[in-house]
């Protein structure tokens, strides 16, 4: 095996455990990104042995002069392979640390790749050619870097050899571009006059530009601090999933910002339910202390509240904003324009909701920063719009300038990421105050053939059955409220609203009871068909009646979910909220279920809740866990 100088290994340059600094190279086409990369690889001894000689030879054979830019191509085995270069990583190291160059050279899908690469970078080098000066892409890339949240920016004014290493020219460009960056709220750390081709101010100080006297490109990179985790921002723990592998309920997710300890009291948004962290769960972990920003962990709660993917946990005095309407700046990267009023998906951290753009307030040309406020209905590729977005369900957000991770989102159409946005201007409210100012509900325009797509859920029949006093009505109303708060269409059918109207001609004879349940089943089917989640709360003691209710629902293609609200007779009789058991025992009511009429418990219900053992909240949580995923099973393309 070849043994060579460890510093020059291209494949395995990682000789310390210090984090790699990822640097993205951007700038206008032909301003010298590839040359600068080639030069850096060469000057840091990062090229495989013989590579330079090989390329020089190849160039000579073709009658061309050697260019450092060829190094990059050769290295990536791109030459003659007809492979369009995509975002790619090339390692190098300085005595100080390990780097990965993220390169995304210009071609027609450049923007997608640049965004992909830059979003993973710790720092950016933006290359401007001294002879051409600031150009369209110089500005657009800076704008995108600012939206993507790049903290460190180094501007390299390249090709100084073409302007006789003129300080005047360098200062002109620096002044013009600094002004532009300031308007974006970006601050460039350093401006460096350089010639990548000649190696001036790349690895070493330039003898030809003594007037400069500050850091070379590598020195500037080495001076950057490591990317810090956002541990000092307010806690945001974004729930990815809830696991029940070993009987315990583990809430899995990532801490985006802040810290989390066992014993912490958390508020879960959007439901705003509070619970205390019982344990932090990790498997075979090195670290068993508090969890901090960047950690993928699990937690268990001391009180069982309903939590699912998309929920965000925070501390009580620093909760995020709950909104269904907000303002954002959005960049658009696909050919098909963004359209006002079109239904899109919006993903923010682990949340996924339907949304539409209500209005486009203004459109900015990302290269000139010129804005137009001409009441546009569309946003074209490469444009950045300031717009108002409305979602179908409440979204948990932060302003981007406060907590970036919860202040940015992507827009998805037809499964494709089409753009990214940053949120501003949201109003933080005390969560104890009645619903925040950010919630606006309007009537959804529901078309007949796409109710589920439009409302974000299917219709269904949730059939509660159980003894009188088991808790059916209480649970039905709580489930209804939970669904309603999620923006769902829902309605409870019970004795009160059925017996007094639709079924006022029915008594309590066995035939009338059967007819009562039949009519309820039919009404439930119709309502479910109309897109509503119908919750029925009837004793419905006979299996045959319930199985007919199921058949009726299925005829209407509605989901049917039988929920056994289970509590022993003694418990129900002890509760006796309407004194019916008392009357039945006294013989004042005949054929009362459980006393002198049978109750046929369900054999295979979808859900069982034990109200003698669970609180109402726990029962509701059990039902929601099973119900919500079913309601979301529909074909979005229908």
């Amino acid at each position, binding site marked *: 095996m070849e043994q060579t100088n460890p510093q020059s290994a291209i494949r395995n340059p990682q000789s310390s455990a210090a984090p790699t600094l990822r640097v993205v190279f951007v700038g206008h086409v032909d301003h010298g990104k590839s040359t600068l990369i080639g030069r850096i690889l060469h000057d840091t001894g990062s090229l495989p042995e013989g590579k330079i000689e090989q390329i020089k030879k190849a160039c000579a054979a073709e009658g061309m002069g050697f260019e450092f830019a060829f190094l990059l191509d050769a290295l990536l085995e791109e030459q003659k392979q007809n492979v369009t270069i995509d975002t790619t990583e090339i390692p190098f190291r300085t005595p100080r640390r390990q780097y990965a160059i993220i390169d995304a050279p210009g071609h027609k899908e450049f923007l997608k790749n640049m965004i992909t690469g830059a979003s993973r970078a710790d720092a950016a080098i933006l290359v401007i050619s001294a002879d051409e000066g600031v150009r369209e892409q110089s500005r657009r890339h800076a704008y995108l870097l600012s939206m993507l949240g790049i903290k460190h920016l180094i501007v390299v004014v390249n090709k100084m050899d073409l302007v006789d290493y003129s300080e005047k020219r360098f200062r002109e460009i620096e002044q013009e571009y600094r002004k532009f960056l300031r308007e974006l709220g970006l601050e460039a750390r350093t401006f460096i006059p350089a010639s990548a081709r000649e190696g001036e101010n790349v690895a070493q100080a330039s003898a030809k530009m003594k007037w400069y006297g500050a850091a070379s490109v590598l020195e500037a990179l080495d001076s950057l601090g490591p990317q810090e985790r956002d541990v000092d921002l307010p806690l945001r723990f974004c729930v990815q999933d809830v*696991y029940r*592998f070993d009987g315990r309920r583990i809430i899995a997710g990532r801490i985006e910002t802040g*810290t989390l300890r066992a014993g912490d009291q958390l508020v879960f948004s959007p439901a705003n339910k509070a619970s205390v962290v019982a344990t932090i769960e990790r498997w075979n972990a090195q670290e068993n202390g508090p969890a901090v920003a960047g950690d993928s962990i699990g937690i268990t709660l001391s009180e069982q509240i309903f939590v699912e993917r998309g929920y965000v946990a925070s501390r009580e005095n620093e909760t995020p904003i709950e909104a269904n309407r907000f303002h954002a700046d959005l960049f658009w990267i696909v050919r098909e324009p963004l359209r006002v009023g079109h239904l899109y998906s919006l993903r923010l951290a682990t949340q996924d909701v339907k949304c539409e753009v209500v209005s486009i307030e203004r459109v900015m040309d990302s290269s000139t920063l010129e804005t137009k406020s001409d009441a546009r209905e569309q946003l074209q590729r490469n444009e950045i719009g300031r717009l108002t977005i409305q979602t179908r369900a409440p979204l948990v957000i932060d302003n981007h300038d406060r907590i970036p991770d919860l202040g940015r989102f992507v827009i998805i159409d037809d499964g494709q990421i089409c753009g990214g946005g940053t949120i501003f201007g949201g109003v933080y409210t005390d969560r104890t105050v009645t619903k925040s100012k950010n919630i606006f509900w309007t009537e959804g325009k529901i078309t007949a053939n796409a109710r589920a797509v439009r409302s974000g859920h299917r219709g269904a029949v949730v059939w509660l059955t159980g003894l009188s006093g088991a808790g059916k009505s209480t649970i039905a109303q709580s489930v209804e409220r939970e669904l309603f708060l999620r923006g769902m269409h829902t309605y409870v059918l019970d004795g009160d609203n059925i017996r007094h109207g639709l079924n006022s001609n029915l008594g309590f004879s066995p035939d009338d009871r059967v007819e009562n349940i039949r009519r309820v089943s039919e009404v439930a089917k119709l309502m479910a068909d109309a897109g509503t989640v119908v919750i029925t709360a009837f004793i419905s003691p006979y299996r045959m009646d319930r199985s007919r209710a199921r058949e009726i629902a299925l005829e209407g293609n509605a989901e049917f979910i039988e929920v056994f609200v289970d509590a022993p007779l003694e418990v129900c009789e002890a509760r006796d909220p309407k004194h019916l058991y008392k009357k039945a025992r006294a013989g004042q009511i005949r054929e009362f279920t459980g006393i002198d009429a049978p109750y046929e418990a369900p054999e295979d219900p979808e859900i069982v809740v034990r109200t003698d053992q669970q609180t109402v909240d726990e029962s509701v949580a059990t039902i929601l866990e099973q119900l919500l995923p079913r309601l979301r099973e529909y074909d979005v393309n229908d």
Partner: protein
Amino acid sequence: MTNIQRTHLDDLENQSIFIFREAYHVFKNIAMPWSMGKDSNVLVWLARKAFFGRVPFPVLHIDTTYEFPEMLEFREWATKHHNLNLIVKINTEARARGIGYETHDPVTVTHELKTVALQQVLAEYKWDALITGIRRDEDPTRAKERYFSPRNAQFEWDYKDQPPEFWSQFVTTAAKGEHVRIQPLLDWTEVDIWRYIQRENIPIPQMYFARNGRRFRSLGCSPITQAIESTASTIDEIIAELEATKTTERAGRAQDHYERNAMQKLRAKGFL
């Protein structure tokens, strides 16, 4: 101000766990190819980290019938050790046709016994996502990969027009017949893998360690995988060796080098 100590390996581990959980949430029907190689075992380990000790989906071994006996022994042992749901797939049809290293070139054999075998088993189980252990630093074509990388029904990878990936948002849809490759190790380097194996004490086959002056740096089919000259018998020695080498990791894997751009061709046709 909170004082925290997190290392580069912690960052990589956290990101991989995040990707595992995203994948498991999005895709109902998922499997993880497992070659028993070092990266593959790190992947199993990270899955157990993500899912609190268990691997909640099947692992798949594409058995070319040219496996090292020691690897098969390891397979049996590790399946029990990690409590894995193992599926073994052999392209018996190709073997029956006489496809083999004795008579065919390595690119053909690899394609038939690995890629086609994978297509067959995918068609059988209808997985909509596969979790793979590829890394950006292994090969220039792998450097272009995304964490979530769609493959069409013909298994082709359109590397010229890949979806954007930013802010931890991934393309998560697969149409019928398509599948998504999920690649939690994309950001890891070969040395990261070794450091992590060392830190976590992850079981790997002993063939990676030098015996009689030779060891395997990368493991594949026995007829086409070359051991390298090495005296590295501990992980520290392996890391020291890697830091001094300019030879690529897969240099000992004949199918990559059989013809120019072999890896690119294999991968465009569905090779991992």
